[in-house]
């Protein structure tokens, strides 16, 4: 069978997965209502926060502000879709020994963002951190405060004009305009194009791809792009390099929105691989308030699945025993509601916990350097082995 006719058969299969209409994601009633705000609205919101705090001073009351919690304690899962949102639980940050520092950090971040918005500029998280290293001490502190401020303003982080530095990468059958420049991702060598944090500057997405190949890690991205996988199969190759940033998730969502094509995910066969897959598909707890802007519905788990280790006869030497942390994480995931929407994923997770071992995508190299590109991937696609 020639390669082209082979591919044609796959393409037929893929057509079935294509979604003509991608509906907007609606938050359930009891979820926190989040809106995209304009620059002016965000600025006004910050000023209102400040004025509210000051008005308490008139009554000699401790200034205090309520900040929605962004963690498991305040997670709501849409029973129907499995999407993750934030609820209404909040903590108070006030002029008290226990939380004054967090209040000061929040207000200092608000101050910096207010200044940015006034100037009509963007800034990176890193730059914002450097505006008051003395206070923040660690960048994770200011990063978290940015998201806390966004959710306090009931908006998404993009509205704060703070961006993370580019992290994700894209290559393959897609063209778009970025800040006016035409980008052709088929001509990006092997390194790929960095996914810009300024997502609002991306427009005119155009693609003839039949699917997106979403890989967890950079190493797999490199070998697939070097093998020019997108020439063999009409696809777009993307990675968030581990836990994906907002821009990568947003970009993936937009590609699927525009084209309706399916996404095939290649993750490590371990609990963290599944957790990353979850954040693309259902959202994350810390950024639950941004879920409608960030999750992609049309994702399938292609590999590396726990069952593949048997099915593809991956040698035992490359199995890694699950650590205590892995087991704990795995059990937690098993209890999460979104997983009920993916019974086949749940099966794989159970299999992993039962077998007590995990494996990285690189484990495939144990069967030869080209095994992934020449054997594993074609077989998977041809046999429509996605779940």
């Amino acid at each position, binding site marked *: 069978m020639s390669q082209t006719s082979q591919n044609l058969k796959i393409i037929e299969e893929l057509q079935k997965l294509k979604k003509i209409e991608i509906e907007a994601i609606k938050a359930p009633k009891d979820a926190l209502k989040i809106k995209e705000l304009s620059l002016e609205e965000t600025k006004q919101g*910050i*000023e209102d*926060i*400040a*004025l509210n*705090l*000051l008005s308490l*001073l008139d009554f*000699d*009351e*401790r*200034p205090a502000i309520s900040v929605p919690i962004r963690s498991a304690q305040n997670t709501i899962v849409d029973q129907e879709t499995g999407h993750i949102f934030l609820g209404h639980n909040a903590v108070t940050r006030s*002029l008290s*020994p226990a939380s*004054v*520092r967090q*209040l*000061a950090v929040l*207000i*200092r971040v*608000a*101050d910096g963002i*207010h*200044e940015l918005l006034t100037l009509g500029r963007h800034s990176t998280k890193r730059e914002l951190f450097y505006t008051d290293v003395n*206070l923040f001490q660690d960048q994770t502190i200011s990063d978290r405060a940015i998201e806390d401020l966004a959710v306090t303003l009931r908006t998404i982080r993009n509205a704060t004009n703070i961006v993370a530095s580019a992290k994700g990468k894209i290559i393959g059958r897609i063209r778009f305009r970025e800040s006016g420049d035409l980008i052709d991702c088929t001509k990006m060598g092997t390194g790929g194009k960095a996914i810009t944090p300024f997502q609002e500057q991306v427009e005119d997405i155009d693609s003839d791809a039949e699917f997106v190949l979403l890989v967890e890690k950079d190493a797999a991205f490199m070998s697939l792009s070097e093998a020019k996988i997108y020439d063999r199969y009409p696809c777009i190759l993307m990675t968030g390099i581990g836990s994906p940033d907002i821009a990568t998730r947003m970009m993936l969502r937009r590609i699927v929105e525009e084209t309706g094509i399916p996404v095939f995910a290649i993750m490590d066969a371990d609990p963290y691989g599944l957790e990353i897959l979850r954040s693309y598909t259902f959202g994350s707890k810390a950024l639950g308030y941004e879920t409608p802007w960030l999750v992609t519905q049309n994702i399938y788990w292609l590999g590396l699945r726990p069952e593949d280790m048997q099915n593809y006869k991956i040698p035992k030497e490359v199995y890694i025993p699950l650590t205590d942390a892995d087991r704990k994480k795995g059990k937690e995931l098993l209890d999460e509601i979104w997983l009920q929407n993916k019974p086949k994923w749940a099966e794989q997770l159970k299999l992993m916990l039962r077998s007590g071992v995990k494996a990285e995508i690189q484990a495939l190299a144990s069967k030869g350097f080209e095994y992934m590109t020449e054997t594993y991937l074609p077989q998977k696609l041809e046999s429509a082995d996605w779940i």
Partner: protein
Amino acid sequence: MTSDKVETLSAAQWFKENSEIAGFDNPGKSTFTSVRELVENSLDACDDDIQLLQMRGEEIEYPNINVVIHPVSHERIRQKILANLDGGGSGPVLEGIEDFEIEHDPSEKYYVIEVGDNGPGIYHDLISLVFGTVFTGTKYGIKQGRGRFGMGAKMAMIHAQKTTGLDTEIWSATRDVSEESYFRIKIDLKSNSPIYTTQKIIPDKPWHGLRMRLYLGGNLIWAKQRILEYFKQMSLVTPYVNFRLVIGDEKYLFQRVTDEIPPLPIETKPHPHGIDIEELKEMVKRYPRKYVIKNERNEGFPTLAEFLHIDFQGIGEGTAKKFLRYKVDIAPNMPLNELNEAHIFKLSQAMSTYDDFPAPDSSCLSILPHESLEQAANALLEPEYINSVTGKIIAIKGHPVHITTSVAFGGNIPTGATLYRFANRIPLLFKERSDVCYKALEEANIKRYIDINVHGVTVMVSVVSTRIPYQDAAKDFIADYDELRETIKLSMQKAFRGIKTYVSRREEEKKKEQEFEKLKEHANRLGVSLAKITKGIPMSESEIQSRLMKIIMSEYSIDK
């Protein structure tokens, strides 16, 4: 055994052969004990002196005690024997021993030890008596004191004699004459009597006090640290005394830190529980003599009831009669001279078991006020905090025993717990683990109160009594009586609780202060940012800051 075979060992002879029981068991211990005996004699004498001056309403003199330990070579000792010369100097204060070079070779184990004081001194005629015969002293009464057996100085002298063969030199002067007595004495071990080489009165030497010089073989390598520790601890419990110590060419000063003289001990009559049959016989034998009863002077023999009333503490004539009639079954009005051996035996038995006598009188004890000890401990140990507790007074075998515990905490005290034991204001340095205080400390479970891995603690227990219940004649440690151990344990625990309260209060304060600082710091930041966001309307930066401070201040009453 026939009587002609019995040889009577003189007291002096006996002690020469059994010197270990008095702390002369080896050269190191002997060096230490010699110093200690002379120093404690000086302290007793100075205390007596102060008491006398106070009674006369005269101005007191604070005790100065000078100790010189001067290593010398064997060759020099030999020359000294040959020359048979008198020691020089006069008065209590000597910087060193001029007529001897200091010997720096530690293998030469000979020393000149000299201890001088500015106490009352001793009259010329008494000197040979108290220093020439073992078991002579002036401290046999029932009184809290350091010395009691009349042998300390003599043991040191015998030890000197034994090791160098040299005489002990004594200089003494009293307040009421302006002359100095000088003696060179040996003790004749066979007859337990003094042998003088020199005995003279030097006119026109107006000072008072006593200076004794011994030439002895010993071991300073072992003794030096103990001697230093002894003075260090001694200065804690006698903070009204100046100690000057010269060891070779090193000088140490333990300066008086208080003007306060503790109430000094008073002599009392014995308590009936504290007397054995031999002592009782002795007391009876003192009659016939003059005695006073019901304000009337009498001579001869009192009745038995009167005898109990006159010679014991806490026995009224009523109590005496009741006791004799119902407990002893001897007629209270039996004249003392009619008492036979059987009577005395019965009386002694009954006295030690009768529970209705009042508890031993503790007013005769000298208790160092907490403030004085704390003052001394502050100067010496530099702790962060001291807590002192007075334990209750208990009676052991007819003698009142009083406990005070002071616990010094933190500051310059190294981590862990250190125990200082004091018995009638003498530091006890040996056999710590056998001591009742050590056992009490173990039972007190200090870790429940203080984290001694983090904090340093010095536990000072002072036991005073008209008779310290030592385990044995070496007087190294106090015996483990249940009631005593329990009392010490409770007073330790009370002191530890005080420290615990202090620590948590201090930590609470520290935490409050840190919180306050934190709030203040962030209030300033908030002021800056909020004013910037709102462009100073409705409030300026400084106004926001001062309002925030007002709120903080209202919750933290820290004076800043």
